[in-house]
C-alpha cells in the first residue's frame, strides 16, 4: 500500500473498463477519478486537483483522446500532467506518449503508471 494516496484520472467511454481499472488502481491505493470523454475530463480537471497520471483512451464520443490531449497542451495548468495512452490502435496515439495496448495487461499498466511520476 502506498504511503500517500495519489490521484489517477482515467478517461474512457467504456463504463465496465472504467470500473475495472478504477478497482485495480484503488487496490493499489490510488485515488481514482473517472471521465467518460474529453469534455467530461476538461470539466473535472480544474475541480479535482492535479492528478499524478492520466490514463487516456483515444476513441471516445463527444471529444476524443487526441483532442483532449491537444487542449491540455494549450493549458499550462494541465500540460505537464503525465499521460498514459490506452488504446487498441497505438498508431493513432499522439507522438511522444507512452502507450499501453488494449486488451490491457494490468500488471504492465500499473508498472508503467508507477514509472510516470
Amino acid at each position: 500500500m502506498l504511503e500517500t494516496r495519489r490521484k489517477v484520472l482515467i478517461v474512457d467511454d467504456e463504463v465496465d473498463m472504467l470500473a475495472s481499472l478504477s478497482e485495480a488502481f484503488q487496490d493499489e491505493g490510488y485515488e481514482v477519478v473517472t471521465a467518460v470523454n474529453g469534455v467530461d475530463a476538461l470539466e473535472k480537471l480544474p475541480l479535482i486537483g492535479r492528478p499524478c497520471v492520466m490514463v487516456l483512451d483515444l476513441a471516445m464520443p463527444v471529444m476524443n483522446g487526441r483532442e483532449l490531449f491537444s487542449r491540455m497542451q494549450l493549458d499550462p495548468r494541465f500540460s505537464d500532467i503525465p499521460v498514459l495512452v490506452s488504446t487498441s490502435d497505438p498508431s493513432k496515439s499522439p507522438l511522444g506518449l507512452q502507450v499501453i495496448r488494449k486488451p490491457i495487461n494490468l500488471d504492465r499498466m500499473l508498472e508503467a503508471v508507477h514509472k510516470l511520476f
Partner: protein
Amino acid sequence: MDSDSIETGDGHKLSPGMADPPSREEAFPAEVSQDGTVVLGESVHVVQFYEDDAFLAGCVAEFLSPIGSEGDPIVVVASRNHLDLISRRLEARCAFPEGKFPRRVVLLEASVTLSKIMVGNGVDRLLFRTVIGGILETVSGVNGSRRRPRVFGEMVDILWRAGNSEAAMQLEELWNELGRQQPFELLCAYRMDGFSDAAHEGRFSRICADHSAVIPAEKYFQDISLLARSREVSRLQQREQALVTELAYRNKLEEEQRLALQQLQRSEESLRESQDALKNSVDERERLIEGLQRTVRFSELFLGILGHDLRNPLNAIVTSASLLRRRAEDEKLTKPIGRILSSADRMARMIDQLLDFTQIRLGTGLRLDCRELNLRKVCQSVVDELEVAEAGFAAEVLFEGDPLMDGDEGRICQLVSNLAGNALHHRAPGTRVQLRIDGNHPTSLRLEFHNQGAVPAELVPVLFEPFHGNADKKSVHSSGLGLGLFVSRQIVLGHGGSIAIDSSELKGTTVLVELPRKALSGAGNRLFDLGREGNAC
C-alpha cells in the same frame, strides 16, 4: 441502191463510208403488211433507226418522195433541226411552184405538237385523235381527192429520249389505233444511241413488234453485197451470242453479288445482334460485378465495424479478468481466470487480424507509423513475451550486425509475433525455433524464422493468401482465422520489403523476411494499400 442517187442539197455531206438511205422499195417491201407483226388495215407503220441526222433526213426524203403536184399528202412532225434538214432535202428533190410547199405538205414542230396532245406525263387519247387525226383528215382531202397521206413523226423518240418511255409506247399504240380507222403511211424514227442500255432490250423488241416494218440504222446499208451482208449478219449473230453469254454471265454475277450482299447484310445483322447481345452481357456482367463489389464491400465494412465494436467489451472482459486474477489467491479461481484471459487474448488477436484484413480490403490500408527502431530489441521482447505466454516455447535468437532500421514498431512486433508463433505451433515435437537476425547488409536487414517441420506442398503457394487456414482445418493449431501470414506479408510489403518461404521435410521450414533499413521517403505515418504493394514508409 444507187450510191449516187442521194443529193443532200442542205450543206450536209455524208461522211465517207456512211450508208445511203434505203429506197422506198427496200424500206417498204410489198409484203410489208403481211409480216403478221401488226395489222393496220390499209395503213403502214414503219420504224426507222438511225445514228446520223443527215442519214435520217435522207431516209425521210426518200420516204416522202415523189413530191410532185400530184403526190400524196405529206405530214412531217419533227424536231426543229430535223425539220430544217428534211425541208432542204425535199426542196432539193422537188421544184415547188413559187418555191413554196404545196398545201398538201404540212410541217409541224414535234415539241409544239406534243404540247397539244399531252396531259401531264401521258398522251391524251382524245386530244391525239382530234389534233393528229384532224390534220391527217384535212391533208387527205386537199385537191378534192382522198389519198393516203405519208407521215413522218419523231414525237415518240423525243418522249423516249426524255425518259418518258411509257408515253412513247402509248403514242405508238395510238398511231396504230388511228391507222386502223384512217389509212396512212407512217414512218417514225429513233436514234440508236437512245437504246444503249441492256435494260432497253424489252422495250426495243416491243417497238419493233408494234411496227409493220423495221428499217435498221445506216450501218445495215453500208455494204449491199449479199455475201458481205451475210458475213456481217453472221458476225452480228456471233456478237449477239457473245453478248447474250456475257449478259447471262453478268446476270449470274449480279445474282451472286445480290446473294452475297444478302448474306453480308444477314451477317451484318447477325453481327449487330451479337454485338448487342455482347454489350448486354457486358452491361449485365458489370452490373453483377458492381452488385457483388457492393455486397463484398458492405460485408467487409460490416466485419470491420463488428470487429471494432467487439473490442470494447473484450477489453472490459480482459481487464476485469486481470483484476480478478490479481485479487484471487485460490487456485480454483486463478486457473479458470487464466483460461478466460488466454481465450480473450486469442479472440483479441483474431479481431485485430480481421480489422487489418478489412482495412486492407477496403482500401484504407494498414497505417504505418515509421520511426527508428532496434530490430534486435523488438524481436527479443516478442520472444520473451511468447516464452511467458506459450508454455514450452523455446527459441534461439541469433543476431549479428547493425540492428537499427526505420519501421512501425507495433507492426514489426506483430510481424515477428505472427511468424515466431507460427514457427512455434508448427515445429516438430521436441525441436526448437530459431530466429536469426542478420544486420550485416548496409541497406537491409534479414530475418529468418526456422523450425523443423514441413509445410504441405499444396499449401505453399497459398500460404500468404487470406483464410488459407481453411485448407488446414485438421491442424491442431488452426485456432486463428488464417489471416496471420496474409497480414504479415502486407506489413512486410508496406515497409518495402519481401517475404518468402522455403520448406521441405529434410531441411524444415524457413520464412525469410528482408526489410529495407531506411524508409524510402522519410519516416512518418503511411497507409499501405493492398493495391499498391511495395510501398515503403
